[in-house]
């Protein structure tokens, strides 16, 4: 007889863990099976590019739960295991170890994978990507052994890792092909605040350029850029984007289009299969469009929401998506939809105070804010404003 669980959760990242916690809270002890590619019990991701890397948080403190939590709540977990196939009609999953396990409800939280370089020299050692705890440990280890690094990619991962590196006294150069830092998020004016700030902390910046070849024998010793620069370094950390795991869904008959397509209750085109996290294409009711969001807040929220809806609660998605970060002594909070704005207005503070808030507008209506070292009360007020304004669109 094949084993059957009322709930199977595939993936142990932020979304998978959030769903697990919610199901346990809702009384589903003993009814859950979690399948994870990772070798470790579920752990939190944001510290991996920040506190953990900087040595401010010990390894045991990045885990969500101890082993006791799984035992006490009767949660079975298969680590270092992936799902090879989903039998949507038969309601089974087939794991990498060949096991067939049946479910009543399935939640897929596969996440996304770091995009890898496709240029000469990418197989050299000491070119690192950051997704898992083990990835972070390898980078942390390199930080203890080497003196200089190039960070490729001017997104959150790149910015956070650069901050951690210079704090440890490593010479860090950040190379981004964007016109400026975070060019998807912020305008040139705000970017120059961050660039100046980072430069003062010792990070070198090269914008509008990208690597075309890694140099070295055995391990990386540097790279050449499109503009013809040669940058020497002992290691490279890349945060150059992500890619979706698609194959598994295509063969399972689940709708997949820029992500696993889910409807308002996080259900897929199969009513017994749900999705959450970075890999889902969901309908955002605030901005009235389909989106895919790769941030902690959405992963946590959609995981919990999927869990409730798997229990039949019928609660629709309603989050004003947000992202946060902390670099050096700056606390960043961004919420809303950064695409398609016409104007960014500074509505509080100034760059000199290291504390300000920028509002993103289109046709005079608010659609996002970016707050640096600000207060929760202001964020709550801005969220109301964005929701009110977007209701008029």
């Amino acid at each position, binding site marked *: 007889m094949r084993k059957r669980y009322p709930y199977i959760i595939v993936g142990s990242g932020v979304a998978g863990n959030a769903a697990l916690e919610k199901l346990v809270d809702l009384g589903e002890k003993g009814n859950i099976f979690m399948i994870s590619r990772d070798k470790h019990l579920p752990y939190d991701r944001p510290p991996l590019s920040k506190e953990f890397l900087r040595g401010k948080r010990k390894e045991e*403190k990045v885990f969500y739960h101890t082993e006791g939590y799984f035992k006490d709540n009767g949660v079975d977990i298969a680590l270092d295991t992936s799902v090879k196939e989903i039998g949507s009609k038969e309601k089974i999953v087939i794991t990498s170890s060949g096991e067939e396990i049946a479910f009543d409800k399935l939640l897929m939280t596969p996440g996304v994978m770091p995009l890898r370089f496709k240029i000469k020299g990418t197989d050299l050692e000491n070119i690192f990507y950051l997704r898992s705890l083990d990835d972070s440990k390898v980078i942390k280890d390199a930080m203890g052994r080497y003196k200089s690094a190039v960070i490729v990619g001017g997104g959150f991962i790149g910015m956070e890792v650069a901050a951690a590196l210079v704090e440890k006294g490593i010479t860090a150069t950040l190379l981004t092909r964007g016109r400026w830092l975070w060019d998807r998020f912020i305008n040139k004016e705000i970017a120059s605040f961050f660039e100046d700030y980072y430069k003062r902390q010792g990070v070198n910046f090269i914008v509008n350029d990208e690597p075309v070849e890694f140099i070295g024998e055995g391990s990386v010793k540097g790279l050449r850029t499109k503009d013809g620069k040669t940058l020497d370094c002992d290691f490279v950390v890349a945060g150059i984007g992500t890619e979706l795991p698609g194959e598994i869904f295509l063969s399972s008959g689940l709708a997949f289009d820029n992500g696993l397509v889910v409807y308002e209750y996080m259900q897929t085109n199969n009513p017994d299969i749900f999705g959450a996290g970075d890999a889902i294409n969901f309908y955002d009711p605030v901005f009235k469009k389909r989106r895919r969001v790769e941030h902690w807040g959405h992963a*946590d*929220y959609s995981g*919990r929401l999927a869990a409730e809806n798997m229990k039949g609660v019928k609660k629709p998605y309603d989050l004003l998506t*947000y*992202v*946060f970060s902390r670099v050096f002594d700056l*606390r960043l909070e961004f919420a809303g939809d950064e695409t398609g704005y016409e104007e960014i207005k500074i509505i509080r503070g100034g760059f000199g105070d290291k504390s300000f808030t920028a509002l993103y507008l289109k046709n005079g209506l608010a659609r996002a804010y970016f707050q640096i070292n600000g207060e*929760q009360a202001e964020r*709550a007020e801005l969220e109301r404003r964005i929701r009110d304004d977007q209701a008029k669109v």
Partner: protein
Amino acid sequence: MRVRVDPDICTGCELCVTTCPEVFEMRGDKSIVINNPVPRLAEENCRKAVEECPVEAIIIEED
């Protein structure tokens, strides 16, 4: 002592982070627990944070 914040209840008022920064931290608009089990020296502040929480979102899992 182990604690947990229920993110569905937490309103992100930051009171617990102010009272007991050893244990609580803001993650976007919610507070999360960064130190479990709670360090012995932080237990008193942590209990204060549990009591003060205006929406009772902090749960003591193990005393």
